[in-house]
């Protein structure tokens, strides 16, 4: 096979060939940045564990299940999230809800007995949140998902019902 070569002209003017000026320009730029860091302490880095980056409201992080004023979860165990989840990481076991235990709230027939989300499989697509008719399951802005064991990464109902302010 004949290889075709393309000759790109690399002709520089005399001024450009004398790289010293370009080098000095570059040094001037870095000096400006150095002084900005040295005198003004300006940096784009965030001191992570002390300061945290504020993500947008639409950020999809750790899941939570919202609850009403009686600490009763809004979820009615309709299985919509479990069905829509592309990663198949939601496992719900439903049971009947005792109507007496929720006198003031809206009457719901079912409630989840257990509600597990395997965060290791989850792809944080947010489809569970979109599909939920009761706005029960939501994704918070918490991005610190690291755990010590794999079991801890499977969120159960207690964990999901933790207190989350706004979107976390």
């Amino acid at each position, binding site marked *: 096979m004949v290889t075709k070569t393309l000759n790109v002209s690399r002709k520089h003017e005399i001024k450009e060939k004398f790289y010293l000026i370009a080098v000095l320009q*570059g*040094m001037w730029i870095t000096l400006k940045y*150095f002084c*900005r860091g*040295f005198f003004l302490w300006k940096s784009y*880095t965030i*001191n992570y564990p002390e300061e945290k980056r504020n993500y947008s409201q639409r950020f999809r992080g750790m899941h939570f299940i919202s609850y009403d004023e009686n600490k009763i979860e809004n979820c009615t165990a309709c299985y919509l999230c479990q069905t829509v989840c592309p990663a198949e990481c939601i496992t719900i076991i439903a049971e009947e809800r005792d109507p007496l235990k929720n006198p003031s709230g809206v009457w719901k027939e079912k409630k989840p007995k257990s509600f597990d989300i395997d965060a290791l499989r989850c792809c944080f697509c947010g489809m569970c949140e979109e599909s939920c008719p009761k706005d029960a399951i939501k994704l918070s802005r918490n991005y610190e998902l690291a755990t010590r064991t794999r079991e801890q990464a499977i969120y159960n109902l207690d964990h999901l019902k933790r207190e989350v302010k706004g979107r976390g």
Partner: protein
Amino acid sequence: MDLINIVATLIKIILLFAISLTAVAFCTWLERRGAAWIQGRRGPCRVGPFGLLQPVADGIKFFFKESFVPEKSNKFFYLAAPILTLTIPFLAMVSIPFAENLYILNHEIPMRIARFDSGILLVIAFTGLEVYPVMIGGWASNNKFSVLGSLRAASQMIAYEISMGLALLSMILVYGTFDMNEMVRFQEKWMWGCFINPIAALIFWFSIFAETNRLPCDIPEGESEIVAGYHLEYGAMKFALFFMSEYVAMIMASALIATLFFGGYSLLPGFSLVEKGIVALFSIRSEIVNHNLFIIFQLLSIFLKIAFFMFVFIWVRWTLPRFRFDQLMDLGWKILFPLALANVLLMGIVSYFFIYR
């Protein structure tokens, strides 16, 4: 050589060691911090105030790491290279004067470790040796990347040694002496060497970058091409010695440049009058005490200059990208070498007709 001279020499050796190793520690901090500032980052800021204790933490880490020797390496040379690499820049620093002679108890103590009338030749000899530990280390560790790195180092250093030597030669023509004290006195009286001979200053400056393996010429350890080059197989304190030697070599080179081209231990031409005036303010009668006080100014000014050039080393490193190998060789053999030769001729003519008339 009497007792006082021996003691003074020992003290000088210890001081040089202590000061330059502390400076090395500080420089590694400044290198990382300066890089961070230039790139809009923070740099090491956790250990101690402003992260200043980071070098100490690094040192502790280096000491406690496992010190291993690769099985197929040449053990003797493998272990000899890190020792040599730190020794040679220190040896080169031996004859660089840091001030005029000091007078203590009627003894004249030169402010450099060894008194050589031809000090500059000693410096050239020892900077020439700097390539050997690199070659030995790369070859003895029996790793193809290391060998590639040391080959690159050898060819690069030979290429730039020549233009560096020629630049030095032109300066020797200008000053008419091998004695570095005399060179400083010359610059004090006339003007800085870099104004008399700017081309040599440029050539020398660039060759120094190649000699010390600093960016933009750190081809022997080009991380993206040959992992870490000649010190790839070195770990723990042995690597730290290579690392420190780079900075010691930089300090040595800074001192050399300051002495040759930027007035050495006299701050500015004619500034010694001001310094002597300040000393005279103390109104001390004794001539000798005045002279010794004056030496403090000289020490301070060369310290200032070395610090500035160290900063330039770091500054350049975080500005310029690495050269390609063929570009570096082109620059060394095709541009700097002829230029340096022509410059020697030019300086010969200039010094014959203008300086030594």
